[in-house]
C-alpha cells in the first residue's frame, strides 16, 4: 500500500496501481480515449494527463503507477488547458458532421468536446483524407472519423488476435487500415465487430440493413417475419437507459409487431432445433468413430476464421446451420408450406447481437431454392434506430408473447447467447439421449464465466466425454493447433468469436461499462432457471416438427434444410492478397 495525495485528498492505493485507477477509487474522473482496461497502456491519446509534482511534463495517469508521497493534481489549469487543446486538435482533424453521424450522442469525442466546452475552431487546417472502406458485408471503416486511439487495433490484435487492421504511415498521414489498404473483405477480418464496440467515434460501424428492412415492411407483397436472437433481449434496454441486465423480451416483441412484422418469432426456438441436430451429429460422430473433436458452428465468425486460416480442419465443424439460419430455412420451407405462403414473398429479418451474421446471411450455402434463408440482419443498434424513427416509446411498451409455433423455446436455448451456453444445452440433450436420464446438475458451472478456455468432463454411459468452451477467438489458436496435430483430448468444443459470447457481440449497444458482460449473462441464465422446460429435446414444437416434417434429427430432409457446407477461403484470400 502507498499513501499519496490527489487534488489534496489523501489516497491509499495498492502498489502498482495506476494514478487513473487510484483517482477513480476516490471519485475523481479522468477522461481517457486510448485506455483499455486490462491491456497494457499505450499512452497514445494524452487525454488522461495529470500534474505530478516533480515531473517535468504532464504525466499520463493511465500509464503511471502511484508512489508513496506523490502529489497529483488532476484538475489544475495546466491540466485543463492541455486536455482542452488535445480535444481541439482531435476535432480539427475530424469531420464536423455530428448531426448526420451514426454515433451522434454516443460519441466519446463529442462528449469530450462538451466536457471541455469547445466553442470555437482555433486550430483549423488541413484534414486527413482517406477513402471509406465499404468492401465488407458487415463493417464499414471510415478513416476520416478515426482519431487513431488504437483501441480497434488493440482489440483486433491483442484480444481477438486476428490482426486485420493496424497503423500505417507516419505523422499526420497515420491511418488505421488493412494490409496494403486493400479493403476489409480481403483481409483476415472475421467481421466480429469487436472493433466497433471499441471505437469511440463512428470510424467503425456496421453496414446498415435498415433501409432494406423498412422497404420490405412497406411492401405489401412481402410477408415480413422477424426473429430475435437470445442475447438481444438482455441488452437492448441499455439503449433506452434501462439498467444493464434488464430483460426486455416482451417490449421488443410488442415493438416489432408495431413496426409491422406479421410474425415475431424467437431464434431460441431454432436454438433448440440446433441442439437436436448438433447433439445427434455429435453422438453419431462419437459412436461411429467419426471426425472428432467436433466444433460448434453457431458462430459465423468462428466458421469464417477456420475457413480463412485452417481450412484443413473444416470437417471438424458441425454441419448444422446457425440457429437463425435454421429458423429462416424453416420459415421458407416448413412454415411457408404449412401456412400456404409463397416462400419468395417471405422476408425474414434477424435481430442479432452480431455483425458477422450480416455476412453470413449473404453466404450462397445458406439458401433454399436460390432464396436466402435470412433476408436481412439488423444489429441491436439498428433496431433501436428503427424503433425511434417509428415513434415507438420503448419504455412505455406493454409486454407481449412471441408468435407460435416458432416462438416456443426452452431454457437451454436462452443460454445460447452466452459463452458456454451452446455446450451446456447440447450436453443436457446428449446426456439424456444417450442415458435416458437427466444430467445430475443442469448448470455446468465449469463452463460458465469469462475464462478464455473452459473445460469439463462428464461420464456418459461409462465413457468420459471431454468438452471445451473457447471464449473469444483470440483464445482459439492453441486448441486449433492441437486438433491439427491430432493431439486434442476433447470430443466437443464450443467456440464463440466474441469475448463472453453473443451477449458481447459486435452488434450490441456501444458503451464502455465494464459490468455489461456479467449482467447480460445473468439475464440469460435467469431465463433458463425460470423456464419450465430446460432441455431442447423437450421443446414440444421441435418435437412436432420432427414428427411432421423431418422425421428425425440428421435425417435426409433435415440435412437438406438445416445443414450447410463450408469452403476453403484461405487459398482465395491468399491469392487475392
Amino acid at each position, binding site marked *: 500500500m502507498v499513501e499519496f495525495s490527489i487534488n489534496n485528498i489523501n489516497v491509499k492505493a495498492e502498489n502498482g496501481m495506476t494514478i487513473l485507477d487510484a483517482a477513480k477509487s476516490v471519485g475523481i474522473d479522468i477522461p481517457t480515449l486510448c485506455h483499455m482496461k486490462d491491456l497494457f*497502456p*499505450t*499512452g*497514445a*491519446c*494524452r*487525454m488522461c*494527463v495529470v500534474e505530478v509534482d516533480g515531473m517535468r*511534463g*504532464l504525466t*499520463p495517469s493511465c*500509464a*503511471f*503507477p502511484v508512489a508513496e508521497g506523490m502529489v497529483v493534481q488532476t484538475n489544475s489549469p*495546466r491540466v485543463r*488547458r*492541455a486536455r482542452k*487543446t*488535445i480535444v481541439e*486538435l*482531435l476535432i*480539427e*482533424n475530424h469531420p464536423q458532421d455530428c448531426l448526420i453521424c451514426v454515433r451522434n450522442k454516443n460519441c466519446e469525442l463529442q462528449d469530450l468536446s462538451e466536457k471541455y466546452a469547445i466553442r*470555437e*475552431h*482555433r*486550430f*483549423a*487546417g*488541413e484534414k486527413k483524407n482517406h477513402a471509406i472502406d465499404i468492401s465488407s458485408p458487415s463493417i464499414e471503416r471510415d478513416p476520416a472519423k478515426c*482519431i*487513431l486511439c*488504437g483501441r480497434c487495433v488493440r482489440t483486433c490484435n491483442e484480444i481477438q488476435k486476428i490482426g486485420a487492421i*493496424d*497503423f500505417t*504511415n*507516419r*505523422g*499526420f*498521414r*497515420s491511418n488505421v487500415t488493412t494490409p496494403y489498404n486493400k479493403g476489409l473483405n480481403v483481409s483476415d477480418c472475421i467481421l466480429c465487430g469487436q472493433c466497433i464496440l471499441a471505437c469511440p467515434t463512428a470510424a467503425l460501424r456496421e453496414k446498415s440493413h435498415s433501409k432494406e428492412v423498412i422497404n420490405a415492411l412497406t411492401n405489401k407483397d412481402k410477408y415480413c417475419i422477424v426473429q430475435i436472437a437470445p442475447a438481444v433481449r438482455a441488452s437492448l434496454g441499455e439503449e433506452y437507459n434501462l439498467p444493464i441486465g434488464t430483460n426486455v423480451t416482451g417490449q421488443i416483441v410488442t415493438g416489432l409487431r408495431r413496426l409491422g412484422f406479421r410474425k415475431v418469432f424467437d431464434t431460441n426456438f431454432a436454438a433448440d432445433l440446433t441442439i437436436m441436430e448438433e447433439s445427434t451429429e455429435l453422438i453419431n460422430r462419437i459412436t461411429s468413430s467419426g471426425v472428432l473433436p467436433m466444433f460448434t458452428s453457431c458462430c459465423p465468425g468462428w466458421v469464417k476464421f477456420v475457413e480463412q486460416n485452417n481450412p484443413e480442419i473444416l470437417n471438424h465443424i458441425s454441419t448444422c446451420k446457425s440457429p437463425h439460419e435454421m429458423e429462416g430455412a424453416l420459415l421458407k420451407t416448413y412454415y411457408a408450406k404449412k401456412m400456404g405462403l409463397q416462400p419468395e414473398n417471405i422476408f425474414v429479418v434477424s435481430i442479432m447481437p452480431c455483425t458477422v451474421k450480416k455476412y453470413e446471411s449473404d453466404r450462397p450455402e445458406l439458401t433454399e431454392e436460390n432464396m436466402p434463408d435470412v433476408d436481412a440482419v439488423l444489429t441491436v443498434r439498428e433496431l433501436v434506430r428503427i424503433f425511434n424513427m417509428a415513434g415507438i416509446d420503448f419504455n412505455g411498451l406493454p409486454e407481449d408473447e412471441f408468435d407460435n409455433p416458432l416462438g416456443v423455446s426452452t431454457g437451454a436455448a436462452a443460454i445460447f447467447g452466452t459463452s458456454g451456453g451452446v455446450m451446456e444445452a447440447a450436453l443436457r440433450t446428449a446426456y439424456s439421449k444417450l442415458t435416458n436420464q437427466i444430467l445430475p446438475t443442469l448448470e455446468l458451472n465449469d463452463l460458465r464465466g469469462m475464462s478464455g478456455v473452459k473445460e469439463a468432463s462428464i461420464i456418459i454411459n461409462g465413457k468420459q466425454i471431454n468438452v471445451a468452451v473457447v471464449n473469444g477467438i483470440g483464445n482459439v489458436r492453441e486448441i486449433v493447433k492441437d486438433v491439427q496435430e491430432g493431439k486434442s483430448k476433447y470430443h466437443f468444443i464450443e467456440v464463440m468469436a466474441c469475448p463472453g459470447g453473443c451477449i458481447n457481440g459486435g452488434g450490441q449497444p456501444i458503451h464502455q461499462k465494464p459490468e455489461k458482460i456479467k449482467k447480460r449473462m445473468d439475464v440469460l441464465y435467469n431465463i433458463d432457471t425460470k423456464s419450465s422446460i430446460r432441455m431442447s429435446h423437450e421443446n414440444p414444437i421441435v418435437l412436432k416438427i420432427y414428427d411432421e416434417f423431418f422425421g428425425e434429427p440428421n435425417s435426409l430432409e433435415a440435412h437438406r434444410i438445416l445443414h450447410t457446407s463450408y469452403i476453403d477461403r484461405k487459398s482465395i484470400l491468399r491469392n487475392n492478397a
Partner: protein
Amino acid sequence: MKSFLEIQFKNQYHSPETPKSDFLIKCSNPSLSPTQDNELNKYVAELKHEKHEVPIIFIGADTSGLASGAGKVKLAIETELQKLNIDAKIVLTGGMGFGAIEPTVDIKLPNQDRIIYCEITYKDVPELLKTTLIDKRIYSKKVFGKYGKTEGSILNIYETPFFKNQKRVVLKNCGIIDPNYIDEYIVSDGFKALDKVLRNMKPLDVVNEIIESGLRGRGGGGFPTGLKWKLANAKISENKYIVCNADEGDPGAFMDRSVLEGDPFNVVEGMIIGGYAIGADFGYIYCRAEYPLAIQKLENAISECKRYGLLGENILDSGFKFDLKIKKGAGAFVCGEETALIASIEGKRGMPKPRPPYPSDSGLFGKPTVINNVETFANISNIINNGSKWFAGIGTEKSKGTKVFALSGKIKNSGLVEVPMGISLRQIVFDIGGGIPDDKKFKAVQIGGPSGGCLPDAVLDTPVDYESLKQVGAMMGSGGFVVMDERTCMVDVAKFFLTFIQNESCGKCVPCREGTKRMLEIIERITKSYSKEESKADVLQRFKGVIHLQRLAEVIKDTSLCGLGQSAPNPVLSGLQYFREEYESHIYDRVCESHVCKELLTYKIETDLCSGCGLCERKCPNEAIVGEKKHPHFIIESKCIKCGMCVDTCRFDAISVN
C-alpha cells in the same frame, strides 16, 4: 595479411576455441610473447607506422571524405604510383573531422613525420606525388599540418587553430588508424580496457568506475550512464541486452557516423565492457541503413572480434560470453527514441511506449536492457584506461568529459569537433569554427537538432553543458551544431524543423501528430502573402493561429509521449524567445528581413540606377516588368511572382528587394 593470431602464436596458442587470458597483454608487449623473435617487434612497429620501408599514403575515406572526392583521389594515386613505378602503401582511414578541408591525404616517408595535405583533388595528385615521393619535398601548396613536432610553418596538427582548442578522446583514432584493421587498433591501446576489465574488475567495479567518471548519455538526454548500468546490473534476469543507438538522424548531425567509420572497434569494445558490467550476453547495434559504410566497418569489426575471440563464448578465458548483432534501421527518425528503437528491433512498428517500465526493467523482448549512444560507448574504453578521475577532471561540475559536435551551416571550418564540456559556444563558433564566411553577421546557432533551439549572439557565452544549454532553451542533443548568419530567416528555420518533425512523427500521440501539423500550418500562414480573394474566415484563422501558437507549443511540449514530441516545439519557442521581432515583422510588417520567405518579398527597380537595358524585362517569366528602352523600368507588383530572376539578371544592381 598478417595478424597477431598468426605471428604471435604460431601454434594456435590463442583462438576463440582455446582462449587465453594473456593474449592481449602479449600483443602489446612483444617481450612477453612465447615466440620471442624479431618478427613480432617488427610487426608492432609496422602497425604503429614507426618502421616501414615504403612510403605510406593515408587517405581519409569516410563518407564525408568520399563525398568530397576521396574515391577519385585514391584512384588517381594508384594510377600515378603505377606510372611512376613507385612502391607505396595506401591506407584508407576514417576522417579526422575537418570536413571543410577534405579530402585529406597524409604522406609518411620512411623515417619521417606524417604530413597532412588537404583539399586534394585528383588533379593535384601527380604534382603531390612527384613533390613528395620523388623530390622528397613538402608539397607546400596544400599542406595542412603534420603529426610530430612543429617545423617552421608546418604546425603539429594539434596546434592548428581548428584542433588547438579541441580535446580528442572519442575521436582520438579517427583519421589516423585503419578502421578495418584490428591489430592497428590493438597497438593503439585498443582492447586494453577490455583486458583490464575482464582480468581485474568485477562487473560492479566497472559500473562504479563509470558512475564516478560522471559520464552522461551523449545521445541527448544526458542520463548518467553509470546509473543506467547500475539499474540493469541490479536486475536478475536470464537474459539482458545492451543496445547501441546508432540511429543518428538529426539534420546536420554526423558524429556517430564518423566514429563508426573511423574507429568501430572502440565502439565494439565499449559495448563488450558494457555487456560485462550489466551482465548481458547479447548486444544489438541499431544503425540506420543510410550509413552503409558504417555498417560495413561494424560488420568487419564484429567478425574480426569473433576471429580473435573477443566476441563469443568465454572471452579471453574469463568465462564471460557476449555476442553482437547489427540491426539496420529503416529510416524512421523516431526509432532513435529508445522505446521505439526497442520496438523496431523486435520487428514491430517503431512507436514509443510510455515509461515506466524503463528499458532497464523491461526493455528489449521484455528483458532488462541498456541503450547507449555511439559516442557514449566510445568513451568507455578511455575511462577504463585512464581512470574515472581523469575523465571527471575534464568538463564542468555536472557535465564531464568531452562532447563531439558536428559544425555545419554558415561557418568556415565545418566538420567534427570534440571539445571539453564547459567551453563556450562562442569559442566553438569563432575560435574553432573560424566564424562566419563571406563577412556576414552571425545570427544564431541551432544546437540539438529538431529538438534543440536557436541561440542568438546574446547567449553565445553559454558554456556547453547539459543544464546550461537547457536553461537557454536549447539542448545538448546528439551534437548537431548548425550555424546561421543574417541571411537565415528564423521563421523559415522553424518551418523547416516543423516540416521535419511532421514527416518523422510516428503518429501515435495526439499532440505530436496533430499539434505539430497545426503549428506548421500557422507558421506557413505567416510566411505566405495575403491574397485579395482571401475570405474573412481565412483572415480570422490566421489571426487565431498566431494568437494561440505559443499555447499550442507549450501544450505539445507538456503532453507529448516521447522526446520527439516534447521537444518538437523548441525551434518555435526559442524563436519566439530570441527572435520575436522577426516573427512580428513577418506578421505585422509582412517583411522577411533575411529575404528568405519569398512570398513576402517586394522587388523594386531603383530608377536612378536602372539604365533601361531591358534585360530584366526579357528575362521576367511573367511579364511583370515594363519600361521604355534606355529609360528606367518598373515592376508591376501584382504580376510579380517573386522569383528573383530580375535581381540575378541586372548588371547594375538596380533592383532592390524588401
